């Protein structure tokens, strides 16, 4: 730092004034040079007003960036910055100590690929609410894949960096140590090696393999039905087609049953209107409903009906409930579907029929696989009796609830599907 004091403004002669001014400029230049050597200058103003920023200033900035990175690295929690698409943009060094990864191994990956299947929906739901601004922050627990192929229970606090990157979410992750199941083995396919010979897994494979050859057969039948040369055989071809379709549906049901049993349902979550899903499912079931001459009473009164769900899977749940209601209703009977916001952030959808009902002793068994009342019912109503088990499993994968109530035999039954709503983006 240097100081120049200007000479008194008035001088006896022009020449002295000029000399004094020159001396002053010289003194200023000297002082500027002195300040430069002290590193206290950050820009030089050149001819024409062009400004030259000095490197030390930029180096200082880089130094402060390094300091910030060092600060982040000194934090015990794993700090992961994730963009709207779930892609990891940056992570601090704690990721190596806690989860075993080098930071560069993680950056660019999708965070949700590193989360246990069973925990994805709860993690994604928290992420969605924070990234969309419905919640300021959130805390969730989920199992995070480690580099060793194990899953480690983590508690994550989610928040935003509003000034720096408003479109990103910061996950602050710390391992939960006060639980006996801090670390558990990964699913066989992520851990590598041979999977255990598990009954559900075998069932899933078997049903999948059995389903594959049916598709070309269905196409073949459709082709023959369209061919005029086989006009006489059309009723037989239609019968073959119906039975193969039924076979395919049963195998799909078996496959879903195995997936639900293994808690391995994969959900593609998106914001959807549960009311629209109900109407869509009723459309799909239209012919069955019309065939049984059943009247549907719709009372979708809930004002908040947006939920975070896998559209197809949620429809599958509703489809099972509608089909169930139709199946156990007398011909010409009625079913009613109603919705209500039973609690803040809660949506309940009730599927009620006035059919055969359920005796109290059997109520707890309704969602068990292969249960369908007594044996006589099994023959009367057909199917594997897996529908409600699958519906409950899929609902739980959505962190929802599915319960049943019935006043007894002949009194009908009401299934209640409880879901969590998300804030509506538009009204």
């Amino acid at each position: 730092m240097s100081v120049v004091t200007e000479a008194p403004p008035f001088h006896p002669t022009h020449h002295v004034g000029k000399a004094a001014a020159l001396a002053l400029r010289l003194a200023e230049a000297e002082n500027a040079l002195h300040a430069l050597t002290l590193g206290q200058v950050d820009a030089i103003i050149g001819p024409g007003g062009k400004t030259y920023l000095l490197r030390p200033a930029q180096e200082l900035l880089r130094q402060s960036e390094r300091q910030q990175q060092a600060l982040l690295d000194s934090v015990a929690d794993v700090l992961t910055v994730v963009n709207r698409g779930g892609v990891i943009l940056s992570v601090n060094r704690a990721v190596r100590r806690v989860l075993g990864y080098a930071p560069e191994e993680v950056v660019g990956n999708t965070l949700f690929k590193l989360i246990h299947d069973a925990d994805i929906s709860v993690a994604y739901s928290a992420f969605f609410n924070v990234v969309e601004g419905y919640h300021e922050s959130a805390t969730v627990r989920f199992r995070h894949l480690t580099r060793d192929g194990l899953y480690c229970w983590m508690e994550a606090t989610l928040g935003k960096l509003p000034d720096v990157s408003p479109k990103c979410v910061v996950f602050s992750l710390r391992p939960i140590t006060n639980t006996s199941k801090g670390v558990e083995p990964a699913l066989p396919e992520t851990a590598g090696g041979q999977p255990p010979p598990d009954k559900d897994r075998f069932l899933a494979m078997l049903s999948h393999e059995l389903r594959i050859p049916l598709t070309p057969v269905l196409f073949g039948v459709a082709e023959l039905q369209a061919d005029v040369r086989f006009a006489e055989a059309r009723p037989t071809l239609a019968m073959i087609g119906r039975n193969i379709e039924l076979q395919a549906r049963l195998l799909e049901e078996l496959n879903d049953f195995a997936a639900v049993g293994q808690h391995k349902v994969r959900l593609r979550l998106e914001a959807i209107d549960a009311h629209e899903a109900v109407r869509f499912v009723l459309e799909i079931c239209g012919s069955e409903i019309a065939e049984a001459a059943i009247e549907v009473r719709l009372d979708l009164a809930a004002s908040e009906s947006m939920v975070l769900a896998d559209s197809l899977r949620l429809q599958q749940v509703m489809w099972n409930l509608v089909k169930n209601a139709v199946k156990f209703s007398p011909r010409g009977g009625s079913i009613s579907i109603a919705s209500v916001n039973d609690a803040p952030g809660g949506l309940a959808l009730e599927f009620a029929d006035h059919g055969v009902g359920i005796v109290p002793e059997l109520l707890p068994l309704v969602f068990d696989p292969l249960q369908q009342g007594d044996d006589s019912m099994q023959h009367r109503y057909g199917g594997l009796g897996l529908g409600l088990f699958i519906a409950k499993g899929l609902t739980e994968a959505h962190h929802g609830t599915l319960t049943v109530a019935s006043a007894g035999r002949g009194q009908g039954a009401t299934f209640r599907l409880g879901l969590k709503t998300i804030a509506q983006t538009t009204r």
Partner: protein
Amino acid sequence: MNSSPAASNAASHGAYVFQIYVAGGAPNSVQALANLYALCREYFPGSHRIEVIDVLKEPLRALEEVILVTPTVVKVSPAPRQQIIGNLSQEEEVLRALGLPQKEQKENG
């Protein structure tokens, strides 16, 4: 000397008027600004004016006033006009240059 209306107005009331030439948010500039504000609050409370000129936005003003580098502080009034170059981190030197009582002297006296 070019004076802004505000500067001449303040000058007429015997207040301290400073111009500070900075280069955006560069570290020395920011430090000089902070030091100048602190100094004015302590020594001229309620009787000072500070005009901040960002040479990145107004390079011609720096040229007019023959400012060579940033940060530069110009004491416009009271006379004599003085120019201080640097981040003002050496407070004693600044106080001495401005003819103000220094801290040690205050404490000792």
